[in-house]
Every structure is written in structure tokens, then in C-alpha cells.
């Protein structure tokens, strides 16, 4: 599966392809940044004929078959957070993934959820 140009030379050396080559040099996402803990899911639409998806795009899209967060996707895909955020913003723009409804569009988390977390943390 892996092509030679993506092979790791050594653990410390990092990937041979620089991280932002994956985003074709972009360091910022199109549109608003995808929150690292947003819950994303594939819409099931098929990419249009004019949409070009990289290997990384396709990998992330496939992972979004199950609701996932960018943080988890980055760790699974072994890509930096910002790279994943940029690629996911592309997929969102193409209509291939969407944020699942979560009542966390406010700046502060829901106190009811915090209470549940507190209960469980104390029980751990």
C-alpha cells in the first residue's frame, strides 16, 4: 500500500514527505477550522467528477464511516492535527462529511454533561 516516497527513514527523521506536502502547501483550512473534538461523519455522498481526493483524503473519509473526531483521526492516521484539520475542511466543503449534531455550538460545555463527567471521574 505504502509508496516508497512515504516511507519513514527512521523514527526520529519523520516522514520523507513533509507534512504540508499532504495539504499541497496549505497551512490554513478553507472556511472555519474544524474543531479538534467535533464529531464528524461521512454523508455517504459520492465525490463529484471534478473533486480530486488524495490518498490521505480518502483514508480520512473512510474513517469517517463511523463518527469520529479530528483528534482521534489524527492519532489513527499518524498525521499532525493541523494537517488533518485542513484535509477534513476540504472533505466538508465537498459535502462528503458533516458535523454530527451536538449541542456544543456554545462556548461553554453543557453543565449536565459536566455533572456526568464529574460523577464518573470520582468513581474511577
Amino acid at each position, binding site marked *: 500500500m505504502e509508496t516508497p516516497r512515504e516511507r519513514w527513514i527512521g523514527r526520529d527523521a*519523520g516522514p520523507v514527505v*513533509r*507534512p*504540508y506536502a499532504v495539504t499541497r502547501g496549505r*497551512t*490554513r483550512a478553507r472556511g472555519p*477550522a474544524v*474543531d*479538534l*473534538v*467535533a*464529531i464528524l461523519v461521512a454523508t455517504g455522498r459520492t465525490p463529484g467528477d471534478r473533486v480530486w481526493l488524495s490518498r490521505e483524503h480518502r483514508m480520512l473519509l473512510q474513517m469517517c464511516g*463511523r*463518527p*469520529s*473526531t479530528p*483528534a*482521534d483521526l*489524527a*492519532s489513527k492516521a499518524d498525521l*499532525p*492535527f*493541523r494537517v488533518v484539520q485542513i484535509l477534513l475542511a476540504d472533505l466538508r466543503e465537498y459535502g462528503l462529511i458533516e458535523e454530527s449534531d*451536538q449541542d*456544543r455550538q*456554545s*462556548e*461553554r*460545555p*453543557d*453543565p*449536565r*454533561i*459536566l*455533572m*456526568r*463527567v*464529574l*460523577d*464518573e*471521574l*470520582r468513581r*474511577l
Partner: protein
Amino acid sequence: MNFAASDTVPPRDADDDIPLHTLKVLVAGGFGVGKTTLVGTVSEVHPLRTEETLTDASVGVDDLGGVERKTTTTVAMDFGRLTFSGGVRLYLFGTPGQERFWFMWDQIAYGAIGAIVLVDTRRLTTSFASIDFFEQRQIPFIVAANRFDGARPYSVEQIRDALDVDPEVPVMLCDARDRDMARGALVALVEHALQASKV
């Protein structure tokens, strides 16, 4: 504000693997203060370090000019996770405390429960910038003084005085390597955030 008792919340989904509610906690503090250790101690997943390669453009230091400046900076971002019932997931993010990385903080801090600011009593000043950051943005935070071998023991009051934080900000002693203490810091933060949300 009324809080629903936790036992009245019906289990949303038997499959806890699917995230339904996600929460963020920041672990902040100066360099070498134990952020990585704390995230690793609390996290159920292996302590992950995501290397973030930042270009000058994204770091925003272009105004410094200079011909010999570095073109990229690599910064490690610690990332941990705790999964609770009902699809609730708590994510911990530890990123460098230097001011030039604050553009990362702003994004991560949005919607976060708050922050655990770790301090090393031998080098309190290294955590001042983090404290300022959260104070200015009115993001709930607690201060956890990480215990280092060979460091003179200070009381919570002494640390509070030295840091000059508001009286309602919890200050506690912590050992980032100790699971219970690290978790205690999380409990203190969530409690503090709940208090703050009532005001």
C-alpha cells in the same frame, strides 16, 4: 441553574465507541513542567505525541523579519483521552506554553471545560504566561503544583501568594505521575468550571 442528576440520564447508546458528546481540557504550563506526564497518567490511551510542524506563516513571527530565521518549527502536542458512558469523551491537550504558540491555544480553548495549569515551584515564572492567557479570556483554570524530587516543599498558600491568582481559583499540590492525584486535578477543574458556569 438546575442540573439533571446523572442517574436520570438514560444510556444513549450501548456502543460507547461512538462519540456523542466531546469535551476538551487543556494542560498548560511552562516547558518541562510535567504536561506530558500528566496527560499520559490520566489518559486511557497511550500517551500520544502528535508532532505539529508549523510554518513561519502559521506561527505568525513574520514581523520579526531577519534573514536567518527558521522556516519551520516542530512542536510536540500531547494528546490524551478518557471515555465515559453514554458516548462522552474527554480529550486532553497539552501544548507548549510559549506565547508564539498561542494561536493554537485559542482554537483548542474554544468550548473547552478549562485548563489545568501545571507549575514547577522552582520556576514559577515559566507558568505566568499560561495563567495570564486563561485569566484574560475568562477560561476556568486551576493551578496544580507538580512535585519534583529535590524541590523545596511549599504550601498551597505560599504558591497562591506567589502566583497572585484570584481567590476562587483552586490551587493544589499534585504529582503528575500519580493517577489519583492527576485525576484529582481533573475533578477540581470540572468542579471549578461548574461553579463558574453558575455565576
